[in-house]
């Protein structure tokens, strides 16, 4: 650990120069931990505003549109409008599921960048069950769990491929998971333009009613306030996934192994932990959650398989997991933020603005870890001399 003195010895400051020194903090002050997310998000918005105006978009207009679409307007709140919250929940649902899956893999330092592909394969498997395996008259009590299982298994098996390659052949999982995203999308397209196509439009036929997840609006007979609200049962899958992953990580032996492997794989190996099995298992659970996100999106929102049902949920999940510091509960919070950004993004063109902001937020946050882990000190000339004398004296 650097304490700052040897820098003076090995460096060559010159007797009269000012020096800027960046050194690691020994402990993080509490106030900084609380305030830093706010600073970082404000900083990201500021950087985003600069870049937006460089490319010719009025940042104030873009931001105010995004905010009002995502979270409503004060006038709307007074009228009791809750649909922006419902819309944001709809977008947050797949983000929570993919985000918590990615966070689990990242916790073991398995860079699963393939949540998007796993989500597509989950959606594909779901469609197979809903349209081809089970008859449309199947009771929803059987249909929905079967679809959930198919979605999870589809994503899990697809996630297992890079896991196996990593565990036994030491193949870099970043590239394989990424490549498999593209493969999954072509695979999907083959089915929606080929065998499952509805008149060649790149759409599958619509799911039977029994394969739809219940939405808030389905309850509007009893609760008129829910009229037109599209938030669906999938959000509960998301919350359940968060609870399960949090419990696994915190209270189970397996979770302990995941954490140890993530922090120090060599130590884990010496302790007799099975790295290969853990890599494959973690990739399967991570992929399975992404597959479940695909199921929930199809069964809760789109009700059919199509080419572009995901605006990059699986990629946004990476940002979300990192921003949440890989904490499952944090994933919910951050997913709502990015869900809001997605809802707002539907109101502005081009859609790239949202992706750009996503990237900038991530950038500012990782760069901003400097704020937490390091401190910048400016050393005046006298002090250098003084401290050098101290160092040589002691």
């Amino acid at each position, binding site marked *: *650990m*650097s304490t700052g003195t*040897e820098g003076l010895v090995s460096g060559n400051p010159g007797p009269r120069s000012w020096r800027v020194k960046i050194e690691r903090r020994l402990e993080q002050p509490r106030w900084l931990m609380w305030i830093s997310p706010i600073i970082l998000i404000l900083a990201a918005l500021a950087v985003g505003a600069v870049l937006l105006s460089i490319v010719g978009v009025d940042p104030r207009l873009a931001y105010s549109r995004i905010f009002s679409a995502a979270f409503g307007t004060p006038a709307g709140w007074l009228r009791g409008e809750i649909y922006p919250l419902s819309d944001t929940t709809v977008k947050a649902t797949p983000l929570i599921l993919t985000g918590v899956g990615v966070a689990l893999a990242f916790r073991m330092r398995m860079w699963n960048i393939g949540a998007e592909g796993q989500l597509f394969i989950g959606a594909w498997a779901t469609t197979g069950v809903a349209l081809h395996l089970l008859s449309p008259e199947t009771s929803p009590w059987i249909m929905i769990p079967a679809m959930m299982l198919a979605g999870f298994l589809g994503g899990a098996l697809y996630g297992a491929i890079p896991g196996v390659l990593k565990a036994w052949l030491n193949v*870099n999982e970043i590239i394989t998971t990424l490549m498999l995203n593209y493969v999954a999308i072509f695979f999907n397209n083959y089915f929606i333009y080929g065998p499952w196509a509805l008149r060649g439009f790149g759409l599958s036929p619509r799911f039977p009613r029994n394969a739809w997840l219940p939405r808030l609006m389905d309850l509007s007979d009893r609760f008129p306030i829910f009229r037109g609200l599209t938030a669906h049962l999938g959000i509960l899958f998301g919350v359940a996934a968060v609870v399960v992953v949090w419990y696994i990580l915190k209270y189970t032996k397996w979770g302990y192994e995941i954490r140890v492997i993530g922090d120090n794989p060599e130590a884990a190996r010496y302790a007799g932990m099975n790295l290969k099995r853990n890599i494959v298992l973690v990739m399967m659970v991570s992929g399975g959650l992404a597959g479940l996100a695909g199921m929930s999106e199809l069964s809760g929102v789109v009700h059919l398989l199509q080419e572009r049902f995901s605006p990059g949920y699986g990629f946004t999940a990476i940002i979300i997991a*990192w921003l949440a510091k890989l904490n499952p509960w944090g994933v919910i919070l951050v997913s709502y933020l990015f869900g809001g950004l997605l809802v707002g993004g539907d109101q502005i063109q081009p859609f790239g603005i949202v992706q750009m*902001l996503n990237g900038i937020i991530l950038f500012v946050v990782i760069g901003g870890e400097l704020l937490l882990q390091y401190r910048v000190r400016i050393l005046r000339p006298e002090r250098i001399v003084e401290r050098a004398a101290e160092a040589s004296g002691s």
Partner: protein
Amino acid sequence: MSDYLIFFTTILAAGVASGTPVLYATIGEVFSERAGVLNLGVEGMMLMGAVTAFRVSHVTGNPWLGLAMGILVGGLFSLLHALVSITLRGDQVVSGLALTFVGFGMSSVIGWPLIDVRDAPRLPAFDIPLLADIPVLGKIFFQHSVVVYIGFLLVPLAWFIINRTRPGLHMRAVGEYPAAADALGIHVDRLRYLYVLVGGLLAGMAGASLTLAITPLWIEGVTAGQGWIAVGLVIFAGWDPFRAAFGSYLFGAIRRLPLDLQGAPVLPWNLHLILRDPLLNYFTNMLPYLFTIAVLVIGSREAMRKKLGAPAALGTPYIRGERGV
């Protein structure tokens, strides 16, 4: 017989052309990684280079100016990664991913007015005198756009710089054992900045060569993962420019396959009809990505067998006075 020969010559020639952008990106990433910095932002830098080159070329009518600006913007973009991962010592994997997100989003915003543009000026293509007349090889290698020829020159040049010059030696030292390099008076962070920048300039060049010569149009995400493929090819290439070139051209041929198969010559048992089936396209389109995975498996196995591997300090920030390589 000559039908088959023409068909294969066409595939290989197209492969050399369409592998050229990946070649630039791969060599750029070789430089960055040899200096110890993993930059997963290649896709984003390529997209920024591609959109800038295309827009400048479209607006000014000068493709060379477009090329220059594309290269420059790719380089500027890479400095974001350098700042976060070298100076601020952020996580290199996540910083690279962030760079790709920003590049994707920003290029789609900049490229918004360009979607229907089909008449942007391109970089010139010409035959190399004499060499172009060699049967078969002439068509494969010497009847191309100028960017392809620059690529031919870049490969030996990059190899020479890395393996036979003093700056190349310093670069490798910084990537393998920064503490030792530091002790010898080599500026670790400064050199890392430099080679991340080189990687960015070449990624910008990769994007520019795509939109100014190889597929001269702009659609959102026009690179279609080629930046990622470059990162994969670096591992396959074992951080060597010549193997990078081999991988890139092979990738190029495979990438063009769905198009080329439409013109497949007549084969026995009507196999050509299967090859020309449009639904097969969905699977042939997967091939470049599957190819990259296959190539990674080969590269990783070889690295394990020969104990050759990534530069030892790849992915780790260097902090003077702290333990580690």
